[in-house]
């Protein structure tokens, strides 16, 4: 059993699976049960400044999209930050941290964009013995209308400023949680770094309308016939999150800055992908909200088995795929593949044919006996047939060996890589040395 012990910014936890700041972490009762189930740490649901507690809607706060058999694929929410008093939360945080000293306890914070507000809350949090803070610059709904959450996260200068205030006013590690509702994730990440933040966590939820009721024309979830955009999360957002994590991991200015990966982590495999793309640990919410706290046990056993199988330590996995993330212009244009259909595995559904014939390159033939074959002279290796085939491994992409002639182009395949930067069609191509 691989050792999954995690050290993130010096914060120790028995595994790299933390519960993200969200409804599952809004009170001691839940957090204790999460720790009992095996979660390595939690980010306590976002606290606001002292005063009257936040008010939530009293109608539905969540909406969902589903796949087959009503499997939840995406969730959106219009819930605001914590709705119990600051004092009660701080007391519970202190108690839980005292009872569970080996688990990571991070406190998420969101107060107005004034130094005084941050100066006021930081000592109170520090007093609980919490391991760190996470600045909620991400929530896209509700609080952003009041100048907080994503309203801060969308302005790099604000991120830098608040991060700096926090670093100046607490000894606790500072994690900046980033909103994906921006055009280029690298700018807010760089700002966090400039402000002195110890790490970034991402992604927060994506602004979304989950659906519209086609009978009463209310956006979902419906509050008395009206709806407002919410924050989207769950398995459907993972590819967006993976890209943003990788962008920060490979950016020259932020490379090496610790990242806590968030966004649709549902299984150990999702977690491993975030780690490979540079996340030091992961945070989970929707999967726990869908299946309960017990899922962490599969994450632990799965990641452990994977590491054992590959004879890797957890630290070997982190960032392992980052060097392979590159720009399109550096992709090897001499890498030539063709689709291959395993006729024994083929169940003759013809989806590859329909996809290729109707929407791609007309490179699959169909016989009267429903035998589907790739025409190499037309196949551009787009991979759509692989993607739509319902049978795992029935269609694969096979590399053409060097020396073979690509029947589509008539060119001899070479094993010498070449990319767009040197391609003759590229007006900006560097001239090869004579």
């Amino acid at each position, binding site marked *: 059993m691989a050792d999954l012990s995690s050290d993130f910014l010096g914060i120790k936890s028995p595994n790299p699976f933390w519960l993200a700041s969200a409804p599952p972490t809004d009170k001691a009762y839940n957090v204790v049960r999460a720790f009992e189930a095996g979660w390595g740490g939690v980010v306590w649901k976002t606290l606001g400044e002292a005063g009257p507690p936040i008010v939530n809607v009293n109608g539905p706060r969540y909406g969902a999209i589903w796949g087959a058999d009503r499997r939840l694929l995406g969730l959106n929410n219009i819930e605001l930050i914590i709705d119990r008093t600051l004092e009660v939360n701080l007391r519970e945080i202190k108690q839980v941290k005292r009872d569970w000293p080996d688990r990571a306890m991070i406190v998420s914070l969101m107060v107005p964009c004034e130094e005084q507000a941050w100066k006021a809350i930081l000592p109170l949090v520090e007093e609980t013995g919490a391991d760190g803070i996470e600045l909620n610059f991400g929530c896209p709904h509700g609080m952003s209308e009041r100048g907080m959450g994503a309203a801060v996260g969308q302005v790099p200068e604000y991120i830098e400023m608040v991060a700096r205030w926090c670093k100046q006013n607490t000894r606790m590690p500072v994690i900046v949680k980033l909103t994906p509702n921006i055009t280029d994730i690298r700018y807010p990440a760089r700002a966090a770094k400039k402000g002195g933040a110890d790490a970034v966590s991402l992604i927060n939820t994506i602004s979304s309308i989950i659906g519209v009721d086609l009978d009463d024309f209310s956006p979902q979830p419906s509050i008395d016939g009206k709806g407002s955009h919410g924050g989207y999360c769950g398995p459907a957002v993972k590819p967006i999150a993976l890209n943003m994590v990788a962008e920060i991991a490979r950016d020259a200015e932020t490379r090496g800055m610790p990242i806590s990966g968030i966004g649709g982590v549902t299984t150990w495999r999702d977690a491993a992908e975030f780690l490979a793309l540079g996340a030091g640990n992961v945070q989970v919410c929707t999967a726990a909200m869908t299946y309960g706290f017990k899922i962490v046990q599969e994450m632990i056993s799965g990641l452990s088995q994977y590491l054992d199988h590959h004879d890797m330590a957890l630290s070997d996995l982190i960032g392992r795929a980052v060097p392979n993330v590159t720009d399109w212009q550096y992709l090897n244009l001499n890498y030539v593949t063709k689709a291959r259909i395993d006729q024994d595995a083929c169940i*003759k*559904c*013809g*989806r590859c044919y329909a996809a290729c014939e109707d929407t791609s390159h007309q490179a699959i033939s*169909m016989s009267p006996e429903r035998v589907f074959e790739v025409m190499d002279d037309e196949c551009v290796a787009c991979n759509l047939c692989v993607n739509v085939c*319902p*049978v795992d491994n029935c269609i694969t992409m096979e590399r053409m060996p060097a020396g073979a002639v690509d029947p589509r182009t008539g060119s001899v395949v070479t094993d010498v890589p070449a990319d767009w930067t040197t391609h003759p069609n590229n007006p900006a191509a560097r001239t090869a040395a004579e």
Partner: protein
Amino acid sequence: MTNSPFTPGIVPARLDGRVLQENFADLHAPLDAHEALVAADRCYFCHDAPCITACPTTIDIPLFIRQIATGTPEAAAKTIFDQNILGGMCARVCPTETLCEQACVREAAEGKPVEIGRLQRYATDRVMAAGVHPFSRAPQTGKRVAVVGAGPAGLACAHRLAMKGHEIDLFDARPKGGGLNEYGIATYKATDGFAGAELDWLMQIGGITLHTGRALGRDLSLDGLCADYDAVFLGMGLGGVNALRAAGEDRSGVLDAVDFIADLRQADDLARLPVGRNVVVIGGGMTAIDAAVQSKLLGAESVTVLYRRDRAAMPASRYEQDLAASKGVRFVFNAMPIAILGNGAVTGVTVEYTRAEGKSLIGTGETFDIPADQILKAIGQTLATTPEELNITGGKIAVTGPGRTSRKGVWAGGDCAAGGEDLTVTAVAEGRDAAEDMHDRLMG
């Protein structure tokens, strides 16, 4: 309950009324809305789908399943009815395991086809339960057509012709329309008077007048029909039954399985239906299976199906055989009856084993007796009357193309016509296609 499975002879009420009711309830419970979505989601929406090719009525199965999956079962039902107006009954009685579901690529992939039959029932039930008839008649053409036989072929033909604006007189020899749907299907496949309800629903198209108790050769003549109508369709099925050609066939307790099944279908009270203690069913088709299973469900102590060839040759599918076996029916293969035993009433049957020699079967000489107080013959049916001036082939009305008989102006389809399997769905396809051809001729 006055009797038990062990009571000798042919007696009613071998089982408690409540047990009988359970025994004859829906064989496959209908899918509920969520089950239908899950089942529909398994469809791969194949290109040029093999299931469509396998369906005798060529229903666009992937399309109707996708319509269910997207929450529009009414549109799904329209897709089905466009091709098969008796899609509701076919959803219940089609041997899908040898048709669409056998062709389903998921059958090849994992041995678990998409549940096409149950999905079809889900869609068609919803529309029929709502009383919606999604077709309307074209302007009247003034043409009059006689359709003989109100079974699947005749109904499909009549509906299609009525839709095109023709005026239909639909004749049937029995007191009710529906044909084998009403009189010939196992009770647990068409519960709650479905055949009658479907007939009423179909008639909503208008322009069809049903005349029951009118048989061809008795009350109607083909010459008369040809004189009175612009076109004639014959879909009266096979009213006769084959003889057993075994000694003692006339003993009491020997019954045609089709009559036994018809009595069951028309029974108001299953507890009043008599059944033997030891029943032997002779034959290997669906009629044999339906009769055997229902005998068992009525409370017979032992039910044996006697089939003269081997299991692989049996016309009833393996699925149907297994269904029967699960109800406690015993199969004896490669065996033929040579004598019905008894003195007045049946007491048993002497059976001889067979073996195939080339295309023919011969007895091996080895015999044994099976005790029986009731014997149900299910060895095939024949044309009851041979309509005048029609060519006959293999005991059925010869047809070319879409059901054209040798007589101009007369079409035929369903079991009485040559070609195609004797299935409800095949009959529907033949009736429909004949109607299209008749329409072209009438309007051409």
